[in-house]
């Protein structure tokens, strides 16, 4: 995509996001039309339930998509994402531990623990895969799967040890957007937005880092510092997001992928576009999740996985040329 079209594409995405949010607010079990006379309780449904939920979708979707874009650039791997590489499981485990130990630090306990465990799991995967040199995609995915299943085992262990909090824990495993604590949403929103803004200043570094660490160093990037910093920022984003929404898969994988096909691989446009598309996609997925079997609701993580997993296989198979996936 030409640089002169960048602003245009951002503007178009913002309009689509606004439309998606608007439509989503009026779709649901209770039929509300913006054009007819509102019942009294419609206000409550719109302002206290659906609007916070759309905000949450925007925060979570953009956070996951940007984290995915960072991972893919940093690991030179178009198939990396916080869910597949076990970072989300790490964050979920962190949140669960915070709940079980009944740590209470004025809304910061969950995001903080999620962040610490997300960071820990990234470091673990990175070292197991030996990603410093040229790591093949298989090695990286394998390391992610191993760490991820280990962490899942720990989550199951936590579940079996504590009967009382089991329901809370299931919340994290399936991905869920019913969090309605507005203070927590605000904190998480601030964290995610500041994370994305910070990453924007590292977008050019990410371009160079995607050439490989050796080359990046030779081109003047302080690779070790940059890498650590970006891992911390992405753990912060993933931790914050998972602490309110649980493990929602495939957004971080697919969104940057689709966006890259349209905008090209330059992270200066890829990051903001991914944030917007991530938000749009999650609003769509959540609208599906709460309407297809209304009045019942399916966890949004189920919806993203149902659409995401086949797409992942498609990407794997479509092969090396088009998506740029190399062994």
């Amino acid at each position, binding site marked *: 995509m030409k640089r002169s079209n960048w602003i245009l594409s951002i503007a178009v995405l913002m309009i689509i996001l606004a439309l998606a949010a608007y439509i989503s607010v009026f779709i649901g079990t209770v039929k509300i039309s913006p054009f007819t006379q509102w019942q009294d309780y419609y206000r409550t449904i719109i302002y206290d339930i659906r609007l916070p939920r759309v905000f949450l979708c925007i925060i979570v979707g953009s956070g996951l998509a940007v984290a995915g874009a960072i991972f893919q650039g940093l690991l*030179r*791997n*178009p198939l990396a994402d916080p869910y597949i590489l076990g970072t989300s499981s790490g964050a979920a485990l962190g949140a669960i531990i915070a709940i079980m130990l009944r740590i209470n630090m004025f809304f910061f306990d969950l995001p903080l623990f999620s962040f610490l465990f997300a960071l820990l799991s990234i470091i673990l995967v990175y070292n197991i895969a030996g990603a410093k040199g*040229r790591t093949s995609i298989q090695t990286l995915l394998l390391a992610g799967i191993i760490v991820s299943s280990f962490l899942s085992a720990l989550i199951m262990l936590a579940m079996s040890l504590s009967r009382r909090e089991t329901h809370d824990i299931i919340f994290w495993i399936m991905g869920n957007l019913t969090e309605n604590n507005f203070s927590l949403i605000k904190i998480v929103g601030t964290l995610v937005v500041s994370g994305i803004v910070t990453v924007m*200043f*590292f977008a*050019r*570094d990410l*371009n*160079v880092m*995607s*050439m*490989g660490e*050796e*080359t990046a*160093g*030779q*081109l*003047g*990037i*302080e*690779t070790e510092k940059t890498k650590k910093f970006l891992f911390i920022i992405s753990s912060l984003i993933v931790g914050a997001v998972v602490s309110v929404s649980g493990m929602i898969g495939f957004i971080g994988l697919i969104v940057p992928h689709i966006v*890259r096909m349209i905008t*090209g*691989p*330059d992270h200066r446009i890829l990051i903001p576009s991914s944030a917007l598309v991530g938000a749009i996609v999650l609003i769509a997925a959540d609208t599906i999740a709460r309407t297809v079997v209304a009045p019942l609701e399916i966890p949004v993580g189920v919806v993203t996985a149902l659409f995401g997993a086949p797409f992942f296989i498609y990407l794997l198979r479509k092969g090396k*040329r088009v998506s*740029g*996936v*190399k062994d």
Partner: protein
Amino acid sequence: MKETLRINNVSHRYNGSNVLEGVSFSVSMGGFLGVIGPNGAGKSTLLKVISRSIKPDTGEVLLDGRPICEMKRRETARRIAFVPEETVVNFSFTCRDIVLMGRTPYINRFSWEGNEDYRKVEEAMKLTDTLKFKARDINDLSSGEKQRVIIARALAQEPDILLLDEPTSHLDISHQKVILDLIRKLNRDNNLTIITVMHDINLAALYCEELLFLNNGKIYMKGSPQELITENNIREVYGTDVQISRDNKTGLPGVIIIPGGNK
């Protein structure tokens, strides 16, 4: 001639075995040094040490008398550029994007590339005859064309020293000539100091002013191609009997392998 780069007693071990052992030499401004030697002699490791991809266990690399490991990477990237043997790009960047990355050490974090940067990119692409690939995906080029784009990226760094690690080993004979002619031109016209690892002794003899012969991580010899490439030296380092033919006019040696033979 003014000395620009000094390698001072560099040793490096890897997995318990010595890859480089007490290597010292210096390169003068505007020189064209070829590094040759058998597989595993430490040629690539030496280049990695100079390009700061590896910090050697002992010894140091001095650039104008200053140890490079004490400099910021931005600073060394403005002085030393590196062209690897082969470049794998996992995303579909255009050739111009790739060359623009050579401007990284000149662009501030909080600003975007300016006209000056675009001019340098254009210049580098003109020199390497890659302007016509400007808007193309780097992955759609042949390896020879790709290598020229990577050289353009190195030139965009405006370096004094260009390091190349077997830049032609993946190329056929016509592309080998294109790349090596280009490097020679950059050396002569732009006064770029060249240090290149060469796999092919004949090509090394034809293009390099001076050769560094590495064997088992140590310097076996350093000198002109004429004095360095002899049947004796090749036998001693490579353990192979060869026949050396010499050009009547220049005295440049050419190595001819003796098939079968009686080692």
